[in-house]
């Protein structure tokens, strides 16, 4: 089963993990990643952040990667919760939970989902710093992180 949510509201890790592994005694490993808002980015103090997304496409992209993760690690399950709207330092941004029979699959699946999400899911961050508002630039290191999963040939990369 795949669970993907895009929402303004915060999330609770324990509640989400409990729901994902409920009634599934085959699960022997749960890996979680939580992304949070830093108060410092590229030397500037971040006061707030606004997250924009592409309704419709975002959910489709996240469901696509969750499906790929389940295909790559059979028996695994994936939950993705991503927040949008205004966020402040210390706030949670994204949650990825993966379950599997053994830890290696859970860890790998979790990293795979995050690497994909960072470069392929249509979200954009705008930071408010002491110098005003600024869209966050994409990082080449994120593209490099994705390439290790050999996904390039399956997904259009744009120009």
């Amino acid at each position, binding site marked *: 089963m795949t669970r993907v949510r895009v929402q303004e509201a915060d999330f609770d890790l324990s509640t989400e993990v409990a729901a994902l592994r409920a009634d599934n005694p085959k699960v022997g490993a749960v890996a979680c990643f939580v*992304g949070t808002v830093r108060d410092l980015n590229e030397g500037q103090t971040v006061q707030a952040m606004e*997250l*924009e*997304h*592409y309704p*419709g*496409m975002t959910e*489709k*992209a996240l469901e696509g990667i969750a499906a790929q993760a389940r295909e790559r690690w059979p028996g695994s399950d994936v939950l993705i919760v*991503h927040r949008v709207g205004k966020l402040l330092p210390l706030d949670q*941004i*994204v949650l990825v939970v993966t379950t599997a029979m053994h830890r290696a699959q859970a860890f790998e699946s979790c990293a795979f989902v*995050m690497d994909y*999400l*960072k*470069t*392929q*899911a*249509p*979200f*954009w*961050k*705008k930071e408010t710093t002491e110098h005003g508002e600024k*869209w*966050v*630039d*994409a990082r080449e290191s994120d593209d490099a992180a994705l390439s290790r999963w050999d996904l390039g040939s399956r*997904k*259009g*990369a*744009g*120009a």
Partner: protein
Amino acid sequence: MKVELRFFAGVREALGVANESVDVPDSVSSVGDVRVWLRTRGGAWAETLAEGRSLRMACNHEMTDPSRRITEGCEVAFFPPVTGG
């Protein structure tokens, strides 16, 4: 052909438009053609959609390269490289 345009993040702000319905000429048959055609509007359009600018494209909610053929009523989006997570 009718096409639904969508713009996001810095591209949306630079153009001052979030979405727009357009009727493209017959010579426009791919997502890349739409980008070139929009540049002929000049000003912010020519600058924001210029060939050297790092831009991502989607057609009907799928990330795509410029060669993707457009179809009647399709939704074409232009946006900066994504920065979620």
